[in-house]
């Protein structure tokens, strides 16, 4: 009886610890590798490249989108090296060339969040989300997860939980959303 009670008390804590460990492990192992400006595989380790899924294969894209993708890759590289001004130029160029491609907005959202402008970040991410097709679940998951992180950072845990849950709808295995949901306070008082 006592053991059952103890297990019941400890189990949520254990779950959170395990999820946090998984999250830390995953962050040490980049999910994607992207091409750098020279066309070679970029070395892992940059913040920008760790957490974003691969963009679609260029063969399926229009010529404009392929060019935009190139700017995007260069922007990712610059962002990974924390050359924010250069990264912004490249992301914006990607949007200018193919304004309906969502990835430029996603990275601009990511970057503006890194620079501390949560409102801009959320709007860019909303735009990215609106442009992502429903079958692009990896990117939808990433986008909503990042929206959750921004809300969490701002202390709006209710909105954060909502976005993390949406993230899991798209990408049930998203470890960051899982761990965030485990770590968020039970009540939404922020």
């Amino acid at each position: 009886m006592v053991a059952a009670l103890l297990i019941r008390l400890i189990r949520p804590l254990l779950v959170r610890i395990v999820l946090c460990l998984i999250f830390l492990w995953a962050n040490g192992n980049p999910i994607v590798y992207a091409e750098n400006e020279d066309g070679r595989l970029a070395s892992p380790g940059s913040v920008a490249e760790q957490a974003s899924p691969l963009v679609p294969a260029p063969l399926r894209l229009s010529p404009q989108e392929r060019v935009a993708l190139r700017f995007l890759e260069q922007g990712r590289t610059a962002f990974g090296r924390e050359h924010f001004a250069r990264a912004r130029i490249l992301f914006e160029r990607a949007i200018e060339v193919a304004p309906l491609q969502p990835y430029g907005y996603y990275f601009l959202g990511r970057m503006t969040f890194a620079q501390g402008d949560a409102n801009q970040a959320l709007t860019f991410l909303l735009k990215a989300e609106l442009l992502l097709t429903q079958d692009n679940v990896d990117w939808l998951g990433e986008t909503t997860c990042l929206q959750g992180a921004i809300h969490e950072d701002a202390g709006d845990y209710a909105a954060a939980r909502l976005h993390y849950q949406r993230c899991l709808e798209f990408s049930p295995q998203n470890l960051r959303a899982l761990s965030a949901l485990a770590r968020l306070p039970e009540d939404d008082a922020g």
Partner: protein
Amino acid sequence: MQRIFWGIIGIVFIGLLATGSVLGWQFYHKLEHEVVTRFSDHRWEVPSKIYAQPVLLYPGLSIADVDLFAQLERLDYQRVEKNIRARGDYWYDSEIGEIHIFLRESNYPGRQRPARQIALYLEKGHIERVVDLDDGTGLLFIETEPEIITRFYAQAWEERRIVKFYEVPSLLVKALLAAEDQRFFEHKGVDLWRVVGAGWANVVAGRTVQGGSTLTQQLIKNFFLSQERTLRRKLVEVCMAVILENHYSKLQILENYLNEIYLGQRGAKSIFGIWEAARFYFGKEPRDLTLGEMALLAGMIKAPNRYAPNRHPERAIQRRSQIVRRMAQLGDITAEEAQAAAQETLGQRKIPLEKNKAPYFVDFLRKELEKSYPAGILTKAGLNIFTALDMRLQHIARDVIQKELVELETKHPKLQRETPEERLQACLVAIQPQTGRVLALVGGRDYQVSQFNRVTQAHRQPGSVFKPVVYLAALERERNHKDGWFLPTSLINDTQFTWFYEDKEWSPRNYKDKYFGMVTLRKALAKSLNAATARIALEVGLEPIRDTALRLGFTSSLPAYPSLVLGAAEVTPLEVAQAYSTLANQGIFTAPTTIKWITNPDGEPLKQSILAVEQRIHPDDAYVLTHLLEGVMAHGSGVRARGLGFRRPAAGKTGTTNDYSDAWFVGYTPELLTVVWVGFDQHAPLLKLGGAQAALPIWTEFMKRATAGTPPTAFSPPPGITLVAVDQETGLRATPSCPKVIQEAFPNGQEPILSCPYHAPGSYAPGSMRRTPVRTTLPSRRHTSPQAASEKGVFLSLRPPQPVVIETPHHPSNRVKPWWQLF
């Protein structure tokens, strides 16, 4: 006595000598101070340059769609018959489908690129591969240098680009010295042998045939002195030249000379400096000039307009031969080189017309810039201003306006006017909604006749173009927690009524006084029905409509009178573009952007515009309205665009004011928004022509050409929207028997649950619906209490649970009645 006399003479002489020395010393110091101060502080007056966007070339691009050769011509590229040799050359072989271009270097901030030789391999008119000819590697894309739109000149229209001494080829310097001052490196500012020689030559000839001035003296004359020919000025010039030589090196003097020298005219503008002259006369940079061209440039200094190769080729060739011979005599070149240079053909270069290619845009830009920079800076500091303007679209816009207005006047001769100032006008502005970049802006028909920029300065009534604001406010109603809501299938009563406000009354009337009775919201917008729109506005209220308008981007004053809802308030076309741009960008506001970068002459950024976004409208509402506006293009007042050949997915709205003095068309694809206005500055009526007849053809032609080369894209519904097939007339779920079925956009959970009962066998005929309204149970809706549903019984979705009264003196007519009480 004699001793005393000589003593006095001696003293006087010594006194005069001393006085002269003191005065001379003072004079020298004064001149020295002046020369050193002014020479050190000398700043060239370099006009600021305004650039358009560079042209991006990449595999898959159709060269016809981007009008590549016209773009190269505007960039002052010269087609050559054989190999490309100099920057600015290009070669094209249509048979093998290859274009070689020697791109000039690009100074675009963040995208600087050195000069580069590239090849474009074509396949059926499309670029198949882009190859860097220097190393043979394939490129994913390449862009040209940005095109200069115009320059901001000071009162003196001087064109000059400053070069450093090391940028000038040594042969050009040698040619210059051979022509003007062969002992430049030997004398100290004044060449006595040259003075004597020139004097003797002039005496022998009996007139002035040779000058004795050194380069230093010429520089002094241009820098400090007037052009008058007096002995005093000559003496001062000599003194100053000596002072200059004492304080500055020969290379410094030569560099200044290369930038200062006058080399002819380009219309009203003066060409100064060797770089500008090389570009103007030969389309090349100094480092790419041939020996013959260098000799010619050097020879022109003596009399630039007399020896200009574009005006007097024979004289120019004679002068070139003289310089080449002299260079050979001085040992600068060999006899063979001299012979080859003398035999160079003087190519008949096509000099591009130097004119402001987007005058209205530049005026607008200048006004924006003058808020941050004094006019003097803009005209003298040599800033580089990189704009968002797309020159291809700009040219299309200008051409289309010219052509379509003439066509309109030909078709309707009563629109013609005798004086140019009174002629029919039009304006156009095109924006990329996602970035706010102003891609094209034409503020009027002819800038020479009228500089009034109708895009930014003309406050005109928008007419029906304003109506979507009313519909958007209605669609937003539920989101704003107001009672009653609207969906595209909501039924509105399109009959005459009177709106009472502030002891006044206002009766909106439909076009030709034709009323349709109960219509869906979609049909009301598609047919631009005034009465139905005003009824919606009465329900929604003026304040929410004004609030929606402000959030969309309208900035003009919008008085809270009922006529506002039919577009009676005056706004500029740029505001209209801004508002619709927010819609096209899924409710996200981005301010219109004209300037991308400003850099100083050294290319260091002074200002950069960054993309800033703000969500102002919920994306679901923005989409539903866009979907409704797609209906305007499909079967409403904008359907003529389809007949004229514009087939892409697009949303749009016509606008016509009551007195027919303004005709509008606003339309957008997901990637490009364009606003067109047509009218008379004097507010004269356009006969009986509305937006669909006067403005829509301009919009259509522009959009057809502007979007060529890009794949068509559709408006994609956001996740909060569900598309449902409904019967067009009833707005209920379509059945197989329904004759007209359309896809309608509903916010999730607000889709109709009932199927159309009217087209099933044995049902009412659709026409009977108006006479015998059928009550239905409330469709499944969010936020709707069953109690409210059972109490009211609504037809589809227009369900004001409580009558809404406009905040004006109470009057029975101001009460919105349920639809069944409206008959």
